[in-house]
C-alpha cells in the first residue's frame, strides 16, 4: 500500500517514450506539449481485481494459480517485460527459478541494434552532446518525433547551447515514409533538407552514403530517386561538421536484415571519425526496453535475445506501461501481469493488475541513449501491488 505523503510532486519523469522527459508538469497536464505524455499521465484509475479465466479472485488465489501453471510448464518464457528496473529485477529472479528466457515486447526492433553492436560495435553519443554540439543532424529513415515527440523541442531548438548556435543547425532527413518533417524547421524558419525515398530503399541509399563517405565514386546519377549530387552535398556537410549526428530508430526499419542498414550508418560514422567528429545515435524506445536490455545484461552477462513465443508452452506476459498493446498470439496459457487498464479479447489464464511505475509507484528507467538513468515518482494514490510484490509472492510458491 502506498502512502499519500509520497505524492508531493508537481514535476515528474515520463516513461511514455525512451526520452524520459523529466520536466512534466503533473499538476497541470494541459501544460504538457506531448500527446504521448498527456495520454500516459491521464490514464484513469481502475481498481480492477485479479482474475482467473476472467473471473475475479483474490491476489493470493491468482498468484497461487500462476505459480501452479508455471510449475507444470516445461518451457515457459517471460515476455512483454514492459516495466521498470525493480520490476524487471523481480521478474528476472522468478524467470531464473523456472529456467525461463526473457524477451521484451520491443525485442524485434531492439535486436536489430544489438546485432550491429555484436557484429561491429559502434560509435555513439547522447542527447546532451546533441543539444550542445551537433551542427549537422542527419535523420535516416525516421522523423524521430513519431517516437520521441519532444526530441527537437528539447535537444535541437533549445535557446542556448555550449558550443553551437542552435538556430543554424543543419537538419537533414534521408529516406523514410510518412515523415513529419515540420519539427525540423528551425524557430526562425530555416527549412530542413529532405531527401525522400521509400523505407524499402533504405538499404540501398545508406550503402551509397557509406560508399561516398569512404571516398568511393558511384557510377550513376541517381539512387532510389535521390540525385547522387544531393547525396554528395550531404556527405560534404557531414565531413565539414564540427559534430555531426546520424540518427535512426530501429522500429522504423521493419524490413529483412535491417541490421545491415544500421551497420551502413554506424560504419559511416566510424569512417567520418577518422578525420572529423561525428557520432551515431539510436533513438525511439518505449516500455522500459533500454532498462531491460541493460539490466538483463548485467544480471546474466548476456543481452536478451529475440525468441519465437510459439516455441514456449507458458507465457508470463508483463506489461505495466502500455495497456493498449494486445496479448501475444499463442495457444499456450498466458499469465498476464500488468496495467489495470488492460483490455482482453480473450481473458488470459491469470491476470494480475499491478502498479504502473510513474503513476502508482516510484521506479527507475534508463533513457534510450543508455547512460542516463532517471528516477520515476509516484504521482497518484493507488492500492495496486507492485510487480516486485507479486513476483516475490510467486517466488515463495515456486521454491
Amino acid at each position, binding site marked *: 500500500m502506498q502512502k499519500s505523503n509520497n505524492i508531493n510532486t508537481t514535476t515528474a519523469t515520463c516513461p511514455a517514450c525512451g526520452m524520459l522527459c523529466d520536466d512534466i508538469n503533473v499538476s497541470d497536464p494541459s501544460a504538457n506539449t506531448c500527446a504521448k505524455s498527456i495520454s500516459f499521465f491521464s490514464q484513469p484509475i481502475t481498481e480492477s481485481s485479479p482474475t482467473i479465466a476472467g473471473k475475479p479472485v483474490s491476489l493470493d488465489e491468482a498468484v497461487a494459480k500462476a505459480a501452479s501453471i508455471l510449475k507444470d510448464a516445461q518451457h515457459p518464457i517471460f515476455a512483454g517485460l514492459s516495466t521498470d528496473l*525493480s520490476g524487471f529485477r523481480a521478474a528476472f529472479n522468478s524467470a531464473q527459478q523456472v529456467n525461463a528466457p526473457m524477451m521484451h515486447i520491443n525485442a524485434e526492433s531492439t535486436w536489430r541494434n544489438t546485432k550491429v*553492436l555484436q557484429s561491429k560495435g559502434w560509435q555513439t553519443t547522447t542527447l546532451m552532446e546533441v*543539444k550542445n554540439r551537433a551542427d549537422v543532424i542527419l535523420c535516416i529513415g525516421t522523423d524521430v518525433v513519431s517516437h520521441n515527440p519532444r526530441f527537437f523541442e528539447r535537444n535541437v531548438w533549445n535557446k542556448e547551447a555550449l558550443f553551437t548556435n542552435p538556430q543554424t543547425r543543419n537538419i537533414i532527413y534521408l529516406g523514410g515514409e510518412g515523415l513529419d518533417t515540420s519539427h525540423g524547421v528551425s524557430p526562425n524558419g530555416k527549412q530542413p533538407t529532405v531527401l525522400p525515398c521509400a523505407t524499402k530503399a533504405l538499404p540501398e541509399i545508406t550503402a551509397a552514403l557509406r560508399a561516398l563517405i569512404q571516398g568511393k565514386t558511384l557510377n550513376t546519377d541517381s539512387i532510389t530517386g535521390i540525385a547522387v549530387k544531393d547525396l554528395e552535398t550531404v556527405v560534404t556537410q557531414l565531413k565539414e561538421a564540427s559534430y555531426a549526428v546520424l540518427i535512426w530508430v530501429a522500429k522504423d526499419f521493419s524490413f529483412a536484415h535491417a541490421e545491415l542498414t544500421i551497420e551502413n550508418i554506424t560504419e559511416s560514422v566510424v569512417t567520418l571519425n577518422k578525420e*572529423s567528429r561525428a557520432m551515431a545515435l539510436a533513438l525511439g524506445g518505449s516500455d522500459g526496453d533500454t532498462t531491460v536490455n541493460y*539490466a538483463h545484461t548485467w544480471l546474466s552477462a548476456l543481452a536478451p535475445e529475440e525468441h519465437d513465443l510459439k516455441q514456449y508452452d507458458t507465457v508470463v506476459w508483463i506489461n505495466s506501461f502500455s495497456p493498449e498493446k494486445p496479448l501475444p498470439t499463442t495457444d499456450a496459457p498466458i499469465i498476464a501481469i500488468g496495467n489495470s487498464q488492460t483490455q482482453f479479447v480473450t481473458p488470459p489464464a491469470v491476470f494480475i493488475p499491478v502498479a504502473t511505475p510513474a503513476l502508482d509507484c516510484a521506479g527507475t528507467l534508463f533513457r534510450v541513449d543508455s547512460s542516463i*538513468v532517471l528516477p520515476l515518482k509516484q504521482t497518484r494514490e493507488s492500492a495496486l501491488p507492485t510487480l516486485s510484490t507479486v513476483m516475490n509472492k510467486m517466488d515463495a510458491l515456486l521454491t
Partner: protein
Amino acid sequence: MITLLKNAKVYDPAHGVDGVKKDIYIRNGHIIAKPSKTEKIHEAMDLSGKVVMAGAIDMHSHIGGGKVNIARMMLPEYQETLKYADPEAHVCGPQCSHNATPSTIVTGMHYIEMGYTAVFEPAVLGINARQAHLEMGDTPMIDKGGYAMLGNDDYFLRLLANKADQKAINDYVAWTLNATQTIGIKVVNPGGINAFKFNQRRLDLDENNKHYAVSPRQILKSLSRAVHDIGVAKPLHVHCNNLGVAGNFQTTLDTMGASDGIPMHLTHIQFHSYGAEGDKKFSSAAAEIAEAINNNKHITADVGQILFGQTVTASGDNMMQHLNAGFANPKKSVIMDIECDAGCGVVPFKYRDENYVNAMQWAIGLEIFLSVEDPWRVFLTTDHPNGAPFTSYPHLIRLLMDKSFRAEAFDKLNLDAQAMSNLKAIEREYSLYEIATMTRAGAAKLIGMDNQGHLGEGAAANITVYTEQSDKEAMFGKPDYVFKDGELVVKHGEVVKVVWGKTHTAKPAYDKSVEKNLKEYFEKYHTIQLDNYKISDDEMAADGRNSVISHTKAAG
C-alpha cells in the same frame, strides 16, 4: 554472540603483525578486544596452521561503471563456454574470457571466493552514477564504492577556463562526491576526453584543450588541490595522458610533478611506463617510473598488470581507445561521447606472450611491482578487465612471490622481449606480509577506511583464512574460510551464505550555494534536472539490501 578464531597465524600490517599466532574475537560483525572471562564464547574455530588476513580490498576494478556492461552486450561469445550442456566440456581457468565480462552475480561470487570483501569501481561518470550503483547493488557478497570522474566535464572546464577560485572548484568537487555517492575523485586523460570532442587526437600534459585553453597540468593541479582541501582521504586518482603510447613514461614522470607535492595516485601505471627504445621503438621504462615513485612520497600507484589471454579493455579514455580500436580482437569496439561529462571506449583485446609488445607489457608490470620499494604505495591490480580478469590475481600473486615460477614464465616470452627486459635479474620475492600490505592495509589506508583492511579492535570482521602452501596461486585462489562482517560466507572456496555488502562513500561538507550556479547550468544545457542527477541515501537503500557508509570525519 561472540565468535573466536584461535591459534591463527595472523598477517595484519596495519598493526605491524607479521605471521604471529593470535586469537581474534568477533561480535556483531566487528572485531573486538579479548572479552572478559565472564563473557560467553558462543563459537570457537581452531585455525592452527592457517594463515589469516583481513578481507582483501581491490582498489581499482571495473565492476560497475557501465562500460563493462557494454562489453557484456557486445561480446556474447565470451559467455559461450557457459552455455555448454556438459560442464565437463569446459575447464574454466583464471584467464577464461567469460571472466572478463562476468555478470554482477558471478563478479561478487568470484571475488568473495578469493577472499576479497570490498571492491572499488574507479570510473563512475557522474551522469552515469545511478547505473554504476544499480550494477554494484546487484553484485552480491562484497562491499563496493566508486570514484567519480571529473576533469573532462564541461562544467569543471568552464570553471577552470573562467579562472574560478579554488573554493568554487572545491565546492563543486565536494558536491559531486555527495551527489554521486562516491568515495574518491578520478581524472582520466585530463582534458583529453573533452578535447576529443573538439577533434583533438592527442593531448600532452602541457598542451591546451583548444576550446578551453587549459592544460592537463592545470586540471591535475586544481583537482588534486580540491580533493586535498575538502579533506577526502583518497588522493586524486589519475589516469595519465598518453595511455599506451610508446615513450609515454615522460608524461607520467612529469605528471608526478603536476600537483606541487599534493598526494596523487597514478593508476594502471604499467600502461604509462613505456619507453621508445630499441628496434621496435617500444621498451620498458619501469626502472625510471619505479625510481620516481620511490623518490616521490606523495605518489602512490597501482600497476594494472597484463596477463596473457583474451580480455576486453574498457576505459573512460575514448580519445586513446579510439586510436587503439584498430587493434581490437575480435574486430569490434564501442566508442562513446557521454552527456558533456566524459566518454568511454570498449575494445576487446587478446594479450599474447609471443607478441613483442604484449610480452614487454607483462614484464614492465612485474618490473614495477618488484622495483617499488614500499608496498604501502603500490597496489595489486590488473585494472580488471583491461589487463586481465580479476580472477587471475592468485596467479599474479604467485608471480610476485615465486622467482622460479616467474623465470619459467619469462622463458616463454617473445625472444626479442626477453632480450629487452631485465626482469630476470630482479631477485625480489614478495612476502605474505607485503602481499597483505598491498591488498589489505595499504588499500584501506589509501581510500581512507579506518575500519577495513585490518584485524584490530573495531574493524569490520572481514577475514580471510588460507592454508599456507608453497604454490601461492593455489593458496590465494581458494581460501578455506571467508568472513564478511562476522558471518562465515565462504567455506573451502564455496559460497555458503549470500550477503549483499554496503557502499563506502565520502561526504565532505560544501557551501550549499554551489547549487545556484549548477541549477542554472542544468537548466540551460543539461537534458535532466539537477534534482534527478543527485542520488540520495534513501535511493541507495531502496532495494532493501544496500546501505551507505560515509568515511568522512566531522570537521574539527
